[in-house]
């Protein structure tokens, strides 16, 4: 696995959490969501946002409403969290924090302890012993 493909997997997993978190307590349309996620390091992009929104809407995590604000020339589709979406993001956030903290701790530990790990014995070797 190269870094690009690994990063792509990471983004896929995190995009849902980013979108749901951005929609907590407010309703936004696609371009606004992308603008707010601009600093997300490409976790949410033009090409991935809309299919993700459609999936979350179909799953009942988001509700959508078409509006034509005064300043807009084209109708916009505004998304907000449903009760199910609220519950999901409330569950996801602590999981992410724990996950992120664990990964950070693992990286930091290796930094402070550069000694090579003892080579592991294979299952066959263990069985022989």
């Amino acid at each position: 696995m190269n870094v690009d493909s690994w990063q792509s997997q990471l983004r896929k997993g995190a995009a849902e959490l980013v979108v749901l978190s951005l929609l907590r307590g407010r309703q936004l349309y696609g371009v606004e969501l992308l603008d707010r996620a601009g600093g997300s390091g490409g976790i949410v992009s033009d090409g991935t946002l809309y299919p993700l929104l459609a999936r979350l809407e179909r799953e009942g995590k988001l509700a959508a409403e078409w509006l034509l604000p005064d300043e807009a020339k084209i109708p916009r589709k505004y998304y907000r969290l449903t009760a199910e979406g609220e519950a999901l993001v409330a569950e996801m956030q602590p999981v992410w924090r724990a996950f992120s903290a664990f990964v950070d701790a693992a990286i930091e530990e290796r930094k402070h302890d550069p000694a090579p790990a003892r080579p592991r014995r294979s299952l066959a070797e263990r069985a022989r012993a």
Partner: protein
Amino acid sequence: MTQPRPARGEAWLSALAHELWPLASDEAAAVVAELRGHLAARAEAGALDECLAALGPPKAFAAAYDLPGERARTIAPVPAGMSGEARKTVRILLRDTRATLRASRNGLMLVGALLVTILTATDFLLWTASRLPSVGIAVAPVTAIRIATLLSALSATYRLALSPVERPWSVDRTFFKFVGALAIATALVVATALAVGWTAASLAHGPAGDAIRRAAGLAALALGSIALLRVQPWLAALASRRQGFSLAAAWRGTRGRMATIVGSWAVLVLPLYLLHVLVNLLALRILPFDAGGMLALAGLDALACALILVTAAMLNAAVLRWILGEPVPAPSPFATEKPAPELVDAARTRLDRLLQAQPVRAA
């Protein structure tokens, strides 16, 4: 909504709309409308090219919407007042007709197979009766079989296209209502054309009378056929047992849309009809009678007639959905839903009876 739209963006959206065929029509329209807003915003910021590059090819982008999995809800459709898409073009009716075909239940292949088989046989018999009267083929029963097949197939096609539950081949009260209404409407058109033609001929004197009668009759037939087209959505609703859709509603609903409907018929049905006329001319007037050649022509004519029937039914079903403001459902060919338990029980019972009737083979 009236601002000029960037051509590259519109081309991308058009390709996207084409690729979104696995979705219901209202969901696909909502996806396109949302992306149209997105592209407009990016174009205003001078970043259309970057945006199109980020979205990627329409085919790959559309594929991301067709994910299997839980679908608790559907994508919110664009409200009618906000839809920027003109709903009255031949292109859109053709697209919805194709979507209707894709969304029809299993069974259309059976309709086609039955039509081609029966129409080939009856064409051949009727042509033989006409070209070789000495053979003594009784025309009336052959014609009756032909008409019964066409009516059953048309009713089945409407049910497969428009109703999720109606049994396609049931000969029930609904079927007879549909057949009666179709017969009355057709008879009215033909009778009016004849009456107009004869009236015109009686008013016109001299050698031009015959030509005037024909011209007036044809004009009345054309106008009557257009009127018959306006009635078709009602007939489709009748065949598929859609309660509460009246003849008046069909008449009102097709007002202002007839140019689109006639245009779509001209594109889809007219070429097949001309092929049908040409094949019949070849068989009845031009080619010498040869059994093998006639049978091949009968097969070609049957294919053309089957396509005419299915295409016309899909068009009428699409127009009915337009009038009702109902989206075309997502395609469901080879659906994997479980059949109704009573159908399974009935099939098991029949199978048991069949197995019991079979002789037991000696080992």
